[in-house]
């Protein structure tokens, strides 16, 4: 099923390009198989061209740019092969305020078909949630959870402004 892999790979590559542009506001990104004759064993090379900058190896990118590029690739994979759920543990740690906003919009776009569980310290990311699970250790060494419903169902939220 080398051809199945190649077909999936092509889809990931095209989604990656599109989502990268969406997150970075322009530029280009590509993912290449270094050995196309042996796709399952081949190394993969990611090349990225942030808007306004020159194409470079991803090693020269900043911490935040790398995190955002990895997020673009992850969601490209989701678009190619949807998963019903996704657990993200502090993937927003390196992002500045404006990139956090872009990240949250991307998550929102996928949230109709994906159940997201996002661990975060960031207030903006928290604002995305319908439910908040607050984990505490009132008794030291022992975890407890308090859950808080933040929003009504998305359908109601959509209708609400017209009710006013």
């Amino acid at each position, binding site marked *: 099923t080398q051809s*199945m*892999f190649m*077909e*999936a790979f092509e889809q*990931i590559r095209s989604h990656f390009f599109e989502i990268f542009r969406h997150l970075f506001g322009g530029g280009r990104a590509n993912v290449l198989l270094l050995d196309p004759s042996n796709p*399952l*064993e081949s*190394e*993969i*090379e*990611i090349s990225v061209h942030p808007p306004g900058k020159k194409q470079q190896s*991803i090693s020269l990118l900043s911490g935040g740019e790398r*995190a955002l*590029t*990895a*997020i673009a*690739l*992850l969601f490209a*994979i*989701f678009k*190619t*092969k*949807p*998963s*019903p*759920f*996704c*657990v*993200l*543990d*502090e*993937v927003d*740690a390196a992002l500045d305020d404006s990139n956090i906003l872009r990240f949250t919009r991307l*998550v*929102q776009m996928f949230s109709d078909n994906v*159940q*997201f*569980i*996002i*661990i*975060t310290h960031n207030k903006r990311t*928290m604002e*995305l*949630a*319908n*439910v*908040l*699970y*607050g*984990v*505490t*250790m009132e*008794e*030291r*060494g*022992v*975890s*407890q*959870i308090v*859950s808080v419903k933040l929003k009504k169902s998305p359908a109601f939220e959509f209708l609400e402004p017209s009710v006013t």
Partner: protein
Amino acid sequence: MYFKQLELFGFKSFAQKTSLELEKGISAVVGPNGCGKSNIADAIRWVLGEQKMRVLRGQNMEDVIFNGSDDRHPLGMAEVTLALDNSSGRLPLDYSEISITRRLFRSGESEYYLNKLPCRRKDIVELFMGTGIGADCYSLIEQGRIDLLLSPKPEERRYIFEDAA
């Protein structure tokens, strides 16, 4: 398909039986450093069959069993149960509700349950195969490891592309 509930008992810092009622859409897990957020992510991986202790940040299997605090003794067992809604029929099992349970005892003995009936770990892993779900897949991104997706090494991202294919 979506998760309906996650129950932890004796798993890492969850000394007391704790239940998360899960909802569709976006949920956020928040709290101070060291309070147990990533342990929840670990519990999901573990109940789905994760065997690599490095991924669970431990050295031995029994590192996931609550090992005590100033005021509590270590527990003898860790247990995690994940209940899912399968009305979409995504999982190849003729039930609209599926629950998977994993237990580990200090002796090293493991138990697995599918809808409360004993099964093998293999049965759980095979249930999720090809769905993009499962411990070793791209749907669970560990803290500090998002960068690995960019690694050139095929082993690092192998499962992602294989899974997606």
